[in-house]
């Protein structure tokens, strides 16, 4: 069964350092999402891509977060500098169509701890 690959699985970083997460969606899925999930809460959308274009990044803290999907396939989410409040699970998801008519396939996430 096809999966969304994410790495690293776990990341511990010091405050003010830079950190990056990688996501490889299911082959052929044009739409890619990055979500952040704080423990005990639901996922919150950070950014949505359609192919290589950003569809929505209104909830992305752009002073420290950046996301790219240069070739419309895999994607990288970066935080610089990391803050204590960024500790969370960062989830990548992909779907075969734009919009929620299709279920999302999520990766296993990257658990970030900022110390």
């Amino acid at each position, binding site marked *: 069964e096809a999966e*969304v690959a994410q790495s690293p699985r776990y990341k511990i970083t010091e405050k003010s350092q830079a950190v990056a997460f990688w996501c490889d969606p299911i082959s052929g899925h044009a739409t890619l*999402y990055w*979500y952040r999930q704080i423990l*005990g*809460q*639901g*996922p*919150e*959308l950070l950014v*949505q891509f359609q192919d290589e274009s950003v*569809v*929505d990044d209104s909830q992305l803290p752009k002073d420290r977060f950046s996301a790219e999907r240069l070739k419309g396939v895999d994607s990288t989410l970066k935080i610089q500098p990391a803050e204590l409040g960024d500790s969370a699970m960062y*989830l990548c*998801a992909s779907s075969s169509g*734009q*919009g*929620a*008519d299709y*279920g*999302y*396939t*999520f*990766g*296993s*996430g990257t*658990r970030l701890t900022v110390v």
Partner: protein
Amino acid sequence: SQKIEQNSEALNIQEGKTATLTCNYTNYSPAYLQWYRQDPGRGPVFLLLIRENEKEKRKERLKVTFDTTLKQSLFHITASQPADSATYLCALAANNAGNMLTFGGGTRLMVKP
């Protein structure tokens, strides 16, 4: 403000019983509603989708209802098993938000043998 509310308290039920989870929303005009299962330390897994013009959807032991008048969805698991223990998330796609999903906080279900 827009809200999606799920019971934050865990639901504990006995094996074999029907589990019913609730998702309420305010200030949304959802085009779709989806339910996901999430195990600890893992990403959510898609279970079911129901559209605004559908009242009920079934898949094996799962049933979802959608009442746009009450602004509520109910998620049922019949003949529950300990393996059904997980957190269940509802998610809405609003008509005026590019159909992007917004998630509720989830409800943890514990099925005891």
